[in-house]
């Protein structure tokens, strides 16, 4: 229950997935938290068990099922829901948002926004204007301007075990970074700030592609040499895509870029990694999707980035290969030989 001391602020979290729950728990150390759960049944279960996404909930987190309540009682809100539901959730929340609100999201996916009646064809290919990061969705759908995002190596399980970690809060507004820092920082959770909002968002989004690749490397039984090769080439690919979509190189070589990339590519705790691993073991993408509890954002991201890269004319060998595997046009074994023959010229050409 919410403690009586009125000096504590009320902060909102939307989405009780594993990352949303982890963030709610961190926030609860300093503030009282409202945690929004869409599904009423699930909300009831969490309320009685005090367990969400197999994480124990702090006492001062209150479960709510109304977005209105979140909007009206919290000035700062952390939306952390899958990218596929993000826009519709923001639309439902929008009527309760005022220009004084601050939104810091933690979703690592992209939004496809193709206007009705538009057909994506060769003549009219998918372009940047059809693809939105989550902060862009918020700016498009609401009157809120003070927007930020969270990204970094933050595996929910390790956070729950109260192990040390750090994250990046990115925003064009210093006050948003400051607020995020004040709310999240504690003696085992460090916060860095960045003003490259799009760059940091893209770090979180693009690393999921490489994580799937890394899972596949393990699934094939390859060793750490191969993984390191994949990770370092993956970073280069992320930077090329990131630059084309409006992010700066700097973001990618920091905590949210390299940092998160290493964590997700080397830990079997990561969902996207699991997807790759199971693909390599011979399961189809539909089998994998059907049996996962939470969405692996990387699958959707691969699809979008592949099409974008085609229309932007940039080379994305890893994304392309994974795209072929997912669509059954190449086996994991074939991809291995294909990839080893890929003609790279300069190793690093962006610094």
């Amino acid at each position, binding site marked *: 229950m919410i403690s009586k001391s009125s000096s504590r602020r009320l902060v909102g979290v939307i989405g009780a997935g594993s990352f949303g729950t982890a963030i709610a728990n961190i926030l609860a150390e300093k503030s009282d938290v409202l945690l929004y759960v869409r599904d009423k049944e699930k909300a009831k279960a969490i309320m009685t068990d005090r367990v969400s996404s197999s994480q124990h909930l702090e006492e001062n987190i209150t479960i709510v099922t109304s977005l209105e309540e979140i909007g009206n009682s919290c000035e700062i809100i952390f939306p952390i829901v899958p990218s596929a539901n993000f826009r519709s959730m923001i639309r439902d929340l*929008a009527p309760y948002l005022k*220009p*004084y609100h601050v939104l810091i999201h933690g979703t690592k996916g992209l939004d496809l926004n193709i206007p009705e009646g538009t057909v994506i064809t060769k003549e009219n290919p998918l372009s940047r204007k059809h693809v939105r990061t989550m902060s862009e969705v918020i700016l498009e*759908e609401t*009157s809120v*301007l003070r927007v930020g995002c969270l990204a970094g190596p933050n595996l929910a399980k390790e956070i729950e075990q109260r192990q040390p970690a750090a994250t990046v809060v990115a925003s064009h*507004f*210093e006050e948003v970074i400051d607020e995020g820092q004040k709310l999240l920082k504690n003696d085992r959770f460090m916060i860095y700030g960045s003003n490259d909002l799009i760059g940091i968002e893209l770090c979180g989004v693009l690393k999921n592609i490489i994580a799937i690749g890394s899972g596949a490397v393990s699934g094939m039984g390859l060793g750490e040499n191969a993984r390191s090769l994949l990770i370092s080439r993956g970073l280069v690919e992320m930077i090329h895509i990131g630059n084309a979509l409006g992010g700066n190189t700097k973001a990618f070589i920091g905590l949210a870029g390299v940092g998160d990339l290493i964590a997700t590519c080397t830990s079997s705790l990561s969902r996207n990694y699991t997807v790759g691993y199971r693909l390599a073991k011979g399961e189809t993408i539909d089998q994998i999707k059907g049996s996962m509890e939470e969405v692996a954002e990387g699958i959707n991201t691969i699809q979008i980035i592949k099409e974008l890269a085609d229309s932007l004319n940039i080379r994305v060998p890893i994304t392309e290969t994974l795209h072929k595997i997912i669509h059954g046009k190449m086996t994991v074994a074939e991809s291995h030989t294909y990839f080893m023959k890929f003609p790279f010229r300069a190793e690093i050409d962006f610094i």
Partner: protein
Amino acid sequence: MKSLGIKRKTKTKYKPILKNNKTWPVMQMAKKRKEFVHLVTEESFDNLLELRRGKSLKEELEMTIFRERQRVKNNPWKVDPDDDYSYWEGQNEKLVGVDALPEEEQEPRLKEILRDVVDRYSNEIAGHFNPSHYNVTRTLVTIGFGRLLNAARVKGPWSVFSNQLDLDDKIHVKGKLDELRKLAKIGTVVMVPTHYSNLDSVLIGWVIQHLGLPPFIYGAGLNLFNLKIFAYFMNSVGAYKVDRRKKNPLYLETLKSYSTIAIREGCHSLFFPGGTRSRSGKIEKSLKLGLLGTAIEAQRQVFQSEEEDQNKVFVVPVAINYHFVLEAPSLINDYLKRKGQQRYYEENDEFTTSYKISKFLLKFFTKGSDISVSIGDALDVLGNHVDAKGNSLDKQGEVIDIKDYFKSNGEVTENHQREQEYNRILGKKIVEEYHKHNRVFSSHLVAYVAFRMLGRIHKHLDLYGLLRLQDDDLVIDYEVFKKQFVVILDELKKLNAQNEVGLADHLLGDIDGVITHGLKNLGMYHAVIPVVKNKKGNIKVQSMNLLYYYHNKLQGYDLEKFF
């Protein structure tokens, strides 16, 4: 001329929105000039003591005084005060003398110098609005130009006294006029026009009084005051002076305070947010955000005040279009030179003497060539649209309270980084509005199509290669040209239907007529007409640089792909 037989259309005459000119904010400001200047001094002084960019007050003063002494020596202007030299030498001596003082007296002495310099700056910047001059100028401009116009276009000995043609036959003011008049009554208007020509400020001055609005204050480049004809006009319309030679923080802070206080106190203002005239002829893409930021700061200060009646600031983008920009040759040369690939010899600025300007004005008002001024949708200082009552609307059309944008933990706070970001957002929005309200003229379209076709034919050439094309390479077959012209015009009509761009009425006639109209009007007073029809009836380009300049007006609409 044929049109003379046509009966005059009944025109809307706009009554002044404030009957009593004593209630004009700018009058109040002129009356209390001394108090106003004092207020500017005090606020800039306080701000300067508060924000120090990693320098001590002494270093800041040393730098400023050093640069001012350099300026007096190397770049003196006619308008500079007579005591410029002695003043800055005097300040320098005072500053040097500070070290000899006992420690506890040093700080107060430095502050004294700072206040003195800032006070001089505020006095320099402040305008000399004079209501009787204002009335004289206004009458002169309207009647004088009106007479010239009639004398030239209405035949017969009494033509000078004819009333058949007014200035508003020549200048088409379109867009949200009534909204602007309404908003000017309930709040403070900051008008932000595009900027192509030195004529713009005169033009906007005329539009403002034509719409019955009280005078707007306007930061005019001090270089314009070197010219008597402009100086008189500027002083009478409530212009204040911006000296681009002075780039020191003390001066800039004073300038900002001046503008902020004026807006806060309800003076309608005019900025050219592009900073200077568009060198390339393109619609402004990146705006100089400095003065624009004062609108945001003023709005926040209003919200911070405890007063009941909280004045709202409205930002109104205005797109100006000409067939012909007098300065085009030098502007485009300047642009190309800056881009640096080719050597251009310097040309004189056409606006160097009063004689030249008068000659131009005479030509301008006696011959064809229309001008359009499109008043855009009013925005609040965050770039949201506002309704007729001045309420800010969000994307769903719901009323929002923009005071909330300045709040943190429930209170309005002063946060410069936040406001800088808002400034960037507002700037982006203004650029969008420019594109929407830009009105395409036949001449722009002719230039655009001709230039792009040549670019397409000579695919292998870069911009500078294109500009160097000679003779036969500069001829385009008329029928081919016409075909392409229709394609682009149709695309523009589609954009127009989606409210993405405005089209001049003369674009709706038959195609040959539109092309002829465009050829006739495109840069019509330049020594070299940019494009003509040659003897065989084909399109012949005579000046690639000018063609490029006028073509740029249609950049940014993604039309390139149709070639």
